[in-house]
């Protein structure tokens, strides 16, 4: 069998944890091989071993059917292995060309020469349909474009084996489609690709085979055309996963939130981003604001929670006019908010988990008395939420929040916000970047909250999520409400057209 890479019986132990326990991975020449696992399953460790960043305690690596000794990334490069890291390693102020040749510069009389490199980059770009302009500055190009630069960087160094670590994590849906096409072209040209992901949909679409890891252990390697979505999910999580959320029909009651002709201007860019927005959300329903990212959803929520001031219009919460309220006053009036950026807004990463659990309520009893924090009450509260929302961490309430995985950070925020029992729960992209197990959990909790006669308002850029959760869907396009729909009566295609602005609907 012709293999590009074989990793046999790889074991790697860190103090206190076996990150890789006898793992086998065989990448055939010319295939796209997915490496699937939840956060913390050991994918990154395994790839770091292949790329020479870590050394395996046990096991053997063979590249192109020869035993290989890889002790640092340079060795890996020499063997034709290239890696695109999840966080790109590009110099912002350099041009694409300068970034690509960095470390491999041509010189003539000790002066840099670019012409050959520019020519080679243009050819490669054309061959693989990467559409990269070598003379643009990296700071001026989109994230998707930057990723193509990273891919080009590997090709420029004649890599035959490409490792992509969670390549779609920061891409827009359209950029993801483009990436998928590029990967297919690369495969056609004979490159071998290792594709690390926890997103099943992408793996089903692009990969030939898939190796699944769970908690540091090898589970299985399967042929994609012989498996199913459900089977992959089960192997990854270790139990059956519900993909269609079980929920009863909504029983909407009285209005909780009502926004009338709200306008918001971004205070930094001075752009008018939310235009005459009118909307109502009711108790006992999940109301989803759908749309393509960047159409004013973020600012809508900022205006609603008080992070940005509104220019005009009125916001009422349970008949109370909260338009002029501060952030705290609105929170106390009954708004909970699971923010879009959990690390920027939702959590103070260097605080212990227990402090984050009282982020809005530290000033209320029982967490304080006469201005002094009540540590027992805080600890009890945190332990209760950890238990109830299955927040996993190294040392419980005292863990530094930064050390929690993304899914557990999100569960912590979810728990904190649900526990405040506000009438209105706002959740922006509540499952972005999470694996299926965590998504399932969070969706169930949101439906539960609805069923306690609360109003749940969600902003999502993910159509699957929109249809899975929504009792009513509002489409937002260029800051405007272009229509409210019943998810049972609107097709995905139509909704997509509304989101793209090519169709305008009537309010229903």
């Amino acid at each position, binding site marked *: 069998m012709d293999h590009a890479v074989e990793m046999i019986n790889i074991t790697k*132990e860190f*103090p206190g944890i076996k990150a890789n326990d006898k793992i086998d991975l065989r990448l055939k020449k010319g295939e796209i091989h997915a490496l699937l696992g939840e956060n913390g399953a050991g994918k990154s460790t395994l790839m770091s071993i292949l790329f020479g960043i870590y050394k395996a*305690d046990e096991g053997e690596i063979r590249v192109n059917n020869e035993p290989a000794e890889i002790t640092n990334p340079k060795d890996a490069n020499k063997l034709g292995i290239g890696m695109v890291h999840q966080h790109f390693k590009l110099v912002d102020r350099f041009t694409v060309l300068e970034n690509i040749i960095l470390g491999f510069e041509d010189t003539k009389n000790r002066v840099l020469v670019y012409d050959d490199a520019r020519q080679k980059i243009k050819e490669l770009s054309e061959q693989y349909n990467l559409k990269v302009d070598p003379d643009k500055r990296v700071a001026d190009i989109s994230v998707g474009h930057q990723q193509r630069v990273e891919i080009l960087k590997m090709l420029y160094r004649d890599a035959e084996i490409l490792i992509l670590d969670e390549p779609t994590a920061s891409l827009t849906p359209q950029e993801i489609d483009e990436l998928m096409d590029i990967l297919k072209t690369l495969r056609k040209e004979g490159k071998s690709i290792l594709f690390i992901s926890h997103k099943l949909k992408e793996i089903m679409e692009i990969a030939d085979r898939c190796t699944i890891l769970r908690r540091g252990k090898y589970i299985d390697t399967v042929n994609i055309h012989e498996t199913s979505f459900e089977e992959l999910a089960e192997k990854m999580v270790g139990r059956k996963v519900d993909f269609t959320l079980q929920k009863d029909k909504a029983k909407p009651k009285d209005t909780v939130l009502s926004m009338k002709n709200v306008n918001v201007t971004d205070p930094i860019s001075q752009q008018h981003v939310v235009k005459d927005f009118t909307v109502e959300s009711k108790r006992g329903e999940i109301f989803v604001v759908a749309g393509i990212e960047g159409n004013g959803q973020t600012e809508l929520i900022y205006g609603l*929670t008080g*992070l940005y001031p509104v220019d005009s219009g009125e916001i009422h919460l349970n008949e109370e006019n909260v338009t002029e309220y*501060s*952030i*705290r*006053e609105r*929170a106390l009036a009954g708004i909970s*908010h699971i*923010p879009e950026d959990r690390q*920027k*807004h*939702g*959590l*103070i*990463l*260097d*605080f212990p988990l227990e*402090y984050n659990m009282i*982020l*809005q309520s*530290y*000033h209320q009893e029982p967490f*304080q008395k006469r*201005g*002094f*924090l009540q540590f027992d009450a805080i600890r009890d509260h945190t332990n209760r939420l950890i238990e109830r929302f299955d927040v996993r961490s190294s040392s419980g309430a005292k863990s530094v929040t930064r050390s929690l995985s993304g899914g557990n950070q999100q569960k912590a925020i979810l728990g904190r916000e649900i526990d405040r029992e506000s009438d209105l729960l706002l959740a922006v992209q509540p499952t972005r970047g999470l694996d299926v197990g965590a998504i399932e959990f969070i969706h169930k909790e949101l439906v539960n909250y609805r069923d306690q006669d609360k109003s749940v308002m969600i902003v999502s850029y993910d159509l699957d999520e929109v249809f899975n959760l929504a009792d009513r869907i509002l489409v937002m396009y260029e800051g405007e409400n272009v229509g409210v729909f019943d998810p049972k009566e609107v097709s995905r295609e139509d909704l997509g057209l509304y989101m793209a602005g090519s169709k305008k609907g009537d309010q229903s």
Partner: protein
Amino acid sequence: MNKIWEFIDKKPNSISVLSSIAAVIFGLIFGFILMLIVSPGTAASGFATILFGPFSDLRNIGFLLHYAAPIILTGLSVAFAFKTGLFNIGASGQLTVGAFFGLYVGVNWDFLGPVHWIVALLAAAVGGAIWGGITGLLKAYRNVNEVVSSIMLNYVSLYLVNLLILNFIYAGRSEAMRPVASARIPSGFMDTIFAGSPANIGIFIALLIAAILHIVLNYTTFGFELKSVGESRTAAKYAGIKEKRSIVFSFLIAGAIAGIAGGLMYLVGDRSFRINEQIIEQGFTGIAIALLGLSSPIGVILAGLFYGSIMRGGDAAQRFVREEIVEIIIAVIIYFSALSLFAKQFIGNIVTQKMKEKPKEPSKEGESR
């Protein structure tokens, strides 16, 4: 040796403590080498005097405490700002303005009687707070970097206070008037214990303020707000904390502490405020003390006492080495303490390496079981 590495690995804070100690040791060694080069004959005895001289009798200890008090306070001022996410490089300016406010009250308001010194010290705190508050307001509402504005305000304060002294409390010969007796920090029982030294209750004021800061930062909702804003302005805002107000408060408090340091330095009988072209060094020393003390009140107290002892040791060592050499040694130690962050990284690396080499054995045992 392995036990030590394991201990450090389990208690990450101990790395920081070790690195601070290492900084002091490196600084001392470097100073000693310097003395060997400059005056090989007297180096050993001079060095011993610097280290142990301050502890030779109670009078010397009195001096040590007297030197340490304002330094502990400027260190606390910087450390407090650090804890709330701000870099207060303007402690010197706040100290200078505080000193003027304190002196003005101390010279003129003698009608206050027995509470005169307390009011003068509070005035110093107010002066420092005003000066710190300017930086805080600029940072919070105009997003002016606090490092830039506070360092520039150091110079503004220098010349402004010179001018104010000339106009209001000038004693001639480039000196400000000294405070009247009722405005001097009382010596309490300190002059009997540490007879012959200028020691007063200043050190207790410094310790009291350290204790208050510790409590405010770690046990109160107000401290929680300040720390939240320091760690993440965006998340604090999300949580409904008025993050701008919080930044102003941080600087008001940091400034007040530095102002009190100015009060302690000049509300005394044996030293007068000189009109000078130089920024008062104690403010900058506070930065090093805060670094060396890892921004914790206890650490700052220890670092401040150490500084006081080196200063006093330097006084005594002038019999053996020239004054400049003593100042260089002090500067080197301060410098190394600023480098303690590097030491931290260095020790951290050693520990990770040692721990990497170790765990193989127990894991094999585990398998054979």
